[in-house]
């Protein structure tokens, strides 16, 4: 099957924003995939494998990020990333991201 680029826009609903654990969760999913994933916000791009780049995007709660995946499992990896962004990490209320 030919590789294809798939894009999707997700809204960051976590009350802290796109924080360290979300970024690590994204990187873990992308590293397991066969696709290249880029997060895009306001024309700035971050590799989905690079937590520092993702944190530097600075995405507060309520803002959206565009995900661009390119590879044989592009659609599947974006499905998985949507779950990461949905962000139910089972945190106790006391915890910070």
């Amino acid at each position, binding site marked *: 099957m030919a590789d294809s680029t798939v894009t999707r826009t997700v809204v960051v609903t976590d009350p802290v924003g796109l924080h360290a*654990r979300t970024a690590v969760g994204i990187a873990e999913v992308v590293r397991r995939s066969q696709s290249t994933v880029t997060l895009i916000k306001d024309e700035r791009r971050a590799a989905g494998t690079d937590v520092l780049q993702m944190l530097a995007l600075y995405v507060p709660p309520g803002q959206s990020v565009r995900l661009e995946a390119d590879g044989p499992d592009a659609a599947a990896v974006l499905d998985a990333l949507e779950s990461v962004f949905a962000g139910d990490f089972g945190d106790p209320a006391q915890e910070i991201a």
Partner: protein
Amino acid sequence: MKFADFICREALLAELSVQDKEKAIREMVQSLCQAGKVDAAQFDDIVKAVLKREELGSTGIGRGVAVPHTKHSSVEHLVGTVAVSSRGVDFASLDGEVVHLFFLLISPPDRPGDHLRALEYIARQLRDDTFCRFLKQAKSPQDIQQLLDEADSNQFGP
């Protein structure tokens, strides 16, 4: 936000004396206690909270960097320190590499926005390879402070 807004210059550690994750966290929190930035009576509770956050997933985010952190009601403002380990600490990092640069952050529970801003600032500076390399080579708290000041003066990064 800049390093000067949240990094305590009296708590900088140019050479962690330990190579163990928990001990490294204890040493950084102790440094903040000794600097008077956090209540020494809260030392054990803060260490416990930072370790609990690590249980949820390592803050070793790759490229030799870790950002251990927690919320704690004993602080009124975001406070943090920077520590360097030339030998590296096994922090169960995302990329499996040992950690050489630590940015420990303690936030008041009601200020998540400051935490995100601090993460963004740290990440933005650390994307500059020169800043990272010089920081790893720091031999004294003064070396670290000078690099943080230079970063705050926009001498690194894009």
